């Protein structure tokens, strides 16, 4: 069962910009990703918005696999700042999980 952490989005947004509310779940990002189907920004962002912290952390490897090449963002019909969102998730993991930077 999905466990929701209501403060998760706030923690992600604390030190970085995260904005995925405009995502229309069309799948262009997934289709265009040079890495193929491993990374699904739209799924990942949905987890964040739902507060599904554990599901996001299960994708740590995928989050750090993103090339930040902007192929998805440049072609996103909803103008979701995908790359900045991925960086925000990396920042969150570096703070709250890896403890590499201050929280």
């Amino acid at each position: 069962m999905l466990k929701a952490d209501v403060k998760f989005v706030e923690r992600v947004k604390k030190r970085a910009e995260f904005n995925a509310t405009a995502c229309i779940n069309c799948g262009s990002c997934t289709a265009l990703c040079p890495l193929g189907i491993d990374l699904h920004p739209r799924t990942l962002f949905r987890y964040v918005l739902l507060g599904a912290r554990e599901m996001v952390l299960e994708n740590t490897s995928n989050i750090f696999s993103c090339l930040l090449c902007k192929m998805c963002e440049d072609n996103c019909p909803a103008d979701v700042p995908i790359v900045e969102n991925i960086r925000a998730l990396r920042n969150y993991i570096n703070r709250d999980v890896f403890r590499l930077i201050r929280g």
Partner: protein
Amino acid sequence: MPLPIHDVLGIFSDNLRTRKCVVPLSLGKVDAWAKGLDIPFGGETVLYTGQMYQLVPAINSMSAMMAKFENSWITRFFGIGRVLNRISNISWFMSGVDGKEQARYNSMLRNIAALLKTAGVEFGYLYGKELYSGALVYDVGLDDVFSEHAKRVYRVFKENGVKRVITVDPHTTNMLKSVYPKIIDGYDLITRSYLEILAEKEMKCVKQLHLELVAHDSCVYTRQEGIVDEPRRLLRAAGAVIHVPELSGRLTHCCGGPLESLFPGKAHEVARKRVVQLADCGKSIVTMCPICMANLRRAANNTLEIKDISEHLVNGYCEVD
């Protein structure tokens, strides 16, 4: 086991904090390329390498080693490696650099300096004072470490009276043009890539290149900075015929480079895909970024001729001895 993300990032972070670079170069390697070129120190306009071209040979050997470590038992000991790295820079031991390779990347910087001089651009260089831009640490989301470093880089420019910066690679260009202004209050450096400057100068070709080249565009130049036409214009004006794969310009396919330190296997897969796309269009590839060049060359394994754009431009626009 995959490479431990936490420990690899920890090593990068420690290195940037204490040694001012993610893969610190030994003293003298940063500015060795400029030896004998008589570029003045400092000035209002400087050529800023961000150490990227100089770093590529070290990154190459580091990546080769990481690829061997990936999925091996050694990954369990990366934590110890991180502790040791705080005492002594382990990347010096890990990254035995090929001298020929270093000389080639240094020559690309010499080409860029020669092209700018031929175009009549006056510039200085900060030599040993020049710092790495911090691009990799920004990408992996270590924002505090990056921000502290970016301010240090900016301070070096300001202390030396720099007003305008000429960059040589897409990652450094993106940092100084688009990222630093967001995090540094009062940031006022004017940054331009050398390709933008050269394209504007409408230089006269001294030798027709008579080459058919396949252009691999950089993701960062095209999608982040909108630099697409400048490299093509310069090459075409020097007599080269440019072919492009279906995925090019703003739709260019990544070279896989950004993954080489954490996921060398995936980086290689992405690069292989791109090499196949490029090979469909021809055998001579031109890149605009040292990271793209390194990654594609590794994946092509000598089946394609892959050169940096500066290696062609210098032949077309400069009187070579």
